């Protein structure tokens, strides 16, 4: 730790000597400006360092200092609403120190060290505490109570507890052995946070996007890969989810993406209101931002920083959603560093450990019972955008993701060109959570949810086959029944599956509304087929009226109030067999408009 110095710099990599005691993934400060870096290889007394900041101007002979600890992130109140870079520094602090452009070498704590939080202890002196126990609460934002946890690996008897206004660095409790517990603790980002046990998925992660909730539902604690070529709307999907998905906390990682897009998020999110709290959605959101022109190694770190923050809120008992846009840029950062390390490349130049690393990252998703008392369950759902070169899903990152992800939401350029958004390709996409989530939809939305879903899937499948035939023989050669099918499938695609992210009434759809539209679409086909069977000619079918009814139902406001229940009941009333149950469930769905806002914690 004496006077190691830079002996080589190439791209984002530096070598330093002598650092014989360096550990892999140890954090180091490189050069006179103190650039942040991580040791990725040790050979004799030479350590190879991936540097998280721009290395331009770094000279041979500049000093290198080891810190003796890995890359960690400070976890505590003040994360919600924060906008941090890939290694956890608030971008506003960097702007304060450096101005409008990012220069290397900034030092900025993740959490504001001067801010005081009102700490309300839940435990008293003499209580025996163990890792994960809730010491007390800080109201982090009006919608989210921050549970101050005993850090993993820490246990003992409380010798002192302090209530009142505290900074994150001040002790809020002391153990008998003198250990100080604080509102915040640091955690190494590459190590998953422990939990008591994993719980199988059940409840769906309600996205507010009809095509996703209806056809390809993902369970809370699940993981999903969203690959799509450029222009297919990956980012809009991720942003729509960040805005409207039913989650207590959202961690959004802009990994190697556009600066203007992040600016848009920063301008828009504070203005959007979370319907459950009536407050800005920014108050439930953490933004990790590392745009494509920011240093590449920090891009690699940004996913780990984001997932660690997400696990932290999961441990409090919250339902957390992590949006990673995009994992491909993370993989490319791996490739870039690997290639500079002269590692033997695997497929498409990616390092051979790509699948392994990606798998470990995705497996940090899950529904868990958290460590400690009181008992609480939390969930971390990962939605990972992927940018396959040329839109080709056979590429290594997509394939590695599909080996571990429980669902695939594939985006289709043809749909995007038609301006059909979200451009989810229903032929390629799948979800392994459909069985697991079906009971929830049956109980909370409509008993025949699964049945309607299946019928619509069949309709879409048949449409595809028919369209192939029609393109060969011409639409006039089709039977009436087939023409009806084509027309109904078109209505289903255009009015139910497509959803406008820019229309305030349509940007998000509650499960009740989604069901109502799906049901109307299904009935349009059923009733039309029935009429044809009765001998009504195709031309006499009132398909235009059915379409208009669908459009009107889509354009109607979706407040999740009694009005929704009434309409669901009304739709259910037509076919007698399912009417009663659908009506009853519609009412139940209405009581719980978009899911519950209170976490299990402390309950």
């Amino acid at each position, binding site marked *: 730790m004496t006077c190691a110095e830079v002996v080589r710099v190439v791209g984002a990599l530096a070598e330093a000597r002598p650092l014989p005691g360096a550990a892999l993934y140890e954090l180091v400060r490189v050069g006179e400006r103190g650039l942040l870096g991580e040791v990725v290889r040790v050979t004799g007394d030479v350590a190879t360092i991936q540097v998280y900041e721009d290395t331009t*101007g770094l000279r041979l002979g500049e000093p290198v200092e080891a810190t003796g600890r890995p890359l960690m992130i400070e976890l505590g109140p003040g994360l919600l609403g924060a906008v941090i870079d890939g290694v956890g520094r608030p*971008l506003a602090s960097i702007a304060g120190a450096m101005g409008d452009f*990012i220069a290397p070498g900034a030092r900025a704590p993740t959490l504001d060290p001067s801010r005081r939080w009102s700490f309300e202890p839940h435990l008293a002196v003499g209580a025996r505490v163990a890792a994960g126990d809730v010491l007390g609460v800080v109201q982090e934002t009006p919608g989210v109570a921050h549970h101050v946890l005993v850090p993993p690996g820490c246990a003992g008897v409380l010798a002192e507890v302090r209530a009142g206004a505290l900074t994150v660095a001040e002790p809020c409790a002391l153990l008998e052995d003198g250990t100080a517990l604080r509102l915040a603790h640091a955690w190494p980002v590459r190590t998953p946070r422990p939990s008591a046990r994993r719980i199988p998925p059940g409840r769906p992660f309600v996205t507010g996007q009809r095509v996703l909730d209806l056809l390809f539902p993902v369970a809370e604690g699940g993981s999903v890969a969203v690959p799509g070529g450029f222009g297919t709307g990956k980012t809009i999907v991720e942003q729509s989810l960040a805005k409207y998905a039913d989650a207590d906390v959202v961690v959004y990682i802009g990994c190697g993406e556009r*600066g203007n897009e992040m600016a848009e998020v920063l301008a828009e999110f504070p203005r959007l209101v979370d319907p459950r709290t009536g407050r800005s959605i920014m108050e439930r959101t953490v933004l990790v931002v590392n745009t494509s022109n920011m240093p590449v190694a920090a891009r690699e770190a940004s996913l780990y920083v984001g997932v660690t923050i997400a696990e932290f809120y999961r441990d409090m008992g919250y339902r957390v959603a992590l949006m990673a846009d995009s994992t491909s840029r993370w993989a490319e950062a791996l490739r870039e560093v690997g290639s500079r390390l002269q590692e033997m490349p695997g497929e498409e130049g990616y390092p051979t450990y790509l699948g392994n690393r990606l798998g470990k990252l995705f497996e940090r998703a899950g529904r868990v019972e958290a460590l400690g008392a009181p008992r609480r369950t939390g969930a971390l759902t990962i939605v990972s955008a992927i940018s396959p070169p040329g839109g080709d899903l056979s590429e290594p990152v997509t394939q590695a993701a599909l080996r571990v992800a429980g669902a695939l939401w594939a985006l289709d350029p043809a749909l995007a060109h038609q301006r059909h958004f979200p451009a989810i390709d229903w032929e390629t996409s799948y979800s392994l959570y459909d069985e697991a989530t079906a009971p929830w939809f049956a109980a909370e939305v409509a008993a025949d949810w699964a049945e309607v879903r299946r019928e619509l899937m069949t309709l879409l499948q048949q449409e595809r086959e028919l369209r192939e035939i029609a393109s060969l023989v*011409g*639409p006039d050669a089709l039977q009436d029944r087939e023409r009806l099918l084509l027309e109904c499938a078109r209505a289903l695609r*255009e009015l139910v599956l497509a959803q406008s992210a820019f229309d305030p009434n349509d940007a998000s759809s509650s499960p009740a509304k989604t069901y109502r539209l799906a049901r109307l679409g299904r009935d349009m086909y059923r009733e039309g087929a029935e009429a044809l069977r009765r001998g009504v000619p195709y031309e006499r079918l009132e398909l235009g009226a059915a379409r208009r009814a669908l459009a009107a139902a889509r354009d109607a406001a979706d407040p999740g109030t009694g009005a929704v229940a009434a309409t669901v009941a009304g739709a259910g009333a037509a076919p007698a067999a399912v009417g009663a149950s659908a009506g009853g469930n519609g009412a139940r769905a209405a009581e719980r408009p978009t899911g519950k806002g209170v976490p299990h914690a402390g309950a």
Partner: protein
Amino acid sequence: MRALERTYHGAPAAAGPLLFLKGTRRAALGEWVVIRTPGEPDRRGQVIDVGEAATVVQVLEETIGLAPRRADVTLTGEVAQVVVGRDLLGRALNGMGQPIDGLPPPFGEALRPIVGAPMNPVRRIPPSDFIETGISAIDGMNTLVRGQKLPVFSGPGLPGLELAGRIVEGARAPRGEPFAVIFVGLGITAREAHAFLDRFEKSGAIERSVLYLNETRDPAIERLLAPRIALAQAEFLAFEAGIHVLVVIADIAHYCEALREIANAREEIPGRRGYPGYMYTDLASIYERAGILEGRAGSVTQIPILTMPDDDITHPVPDLTGYITEGQIVLSRELHRRGVFPPVDVLPSLSRLMNAGIGEGRTFAEHREWANQLYASYTQGRDARLMAAIVGEAGLQPADRRALAFAQRFEDEFVNQGAERRTLEATAAIGWALLDALPREDLVRITEATWLRREAARARPVDPAAPAAPVAVPAPAGG
């Protein structure tokens, strides 16, 4: 700074554009290097890899005739900088920023490092100010806004450069705000360079422009620096002089080839199609230098032009570009063959920031639904065209037949505008005229309210004999 300057006599090795040095104390990554050999003009270079064992210098000029043993290599102690300033307006420079217009070198207002620092995302302002290019397919369907980066995907023989020229000539800054154009020609032929210079001079656009022309015959490595030099100038004009700057870079495909050539010379592990694995990051360091900053008056907007080899949009150059830029304008060979100018295929084209730049107070109130309907009808018409090729036009449903006719008119009358510069009002009127030919049932994206307004507007001029008094107009049914 000169204190850090040191000179080495003789280099141990050279290969392609690279020069290798040994025992360079305190060499810095990105450091500017001057190479002098007796009897030859000075060459410049940049340190791209520093190490005790070897330091690698990328030489910017042609290395033919460079004898490493005889070279005096000076490490200047500074990273590459360039002269920027308002006095560069009206000048034509080469890819290194040296004059090619016969005038003395510009004095400039400041020196700036050519490798820009990333803008802090929290200091950016989301772009939302409409730029009228005078091109219907862009203004109407893929609206460009200030601070955006919107590339043109061209193909060999397609008029990508021509379109860029038209945009440069036609672009207007609203409210008469200060406006400048920076044109960067990368690896363009002498013919193209001449044509462009000529065009800028004839139209008078040169007065508010800076041209950086790297020709095919110039060293490939200059191509890697030229866009960065130009962007350093653009950032100065925008963020320090308060000017709205439009940067046109043509052709990015040549840039990427130069990047591949250098990576190969450095014996790096190649990625897709031989391009280096870091090409995404590298391109981002150019494209991301577009934007608007809080509290600064100007803006940088980029229109990069690139040629898709073999019209292949999945080729790494357009592919990686599309992942970074905020949309793309795609040219179609089929439209070009039919004589449509500009031959923009609006279906794969996209402006991601369009939504922020259109609507009431920016373009026109119904812009979104108007564009959506044009897209929808055109898509249907294109599908019908495929179908008609198999079953014949007579075999189509009536709605498909209407859409087919619509698609044809859309291409001939809306997209095609020849040499005309269209105002936004003209673009909107042509679009409405095309939509008016369709029955209400086909206009699924047009809301009822808009439809009724249009009905009323159309009903009014129907009777030319009617007096101007509003009372004489019979109320349209349902109106």
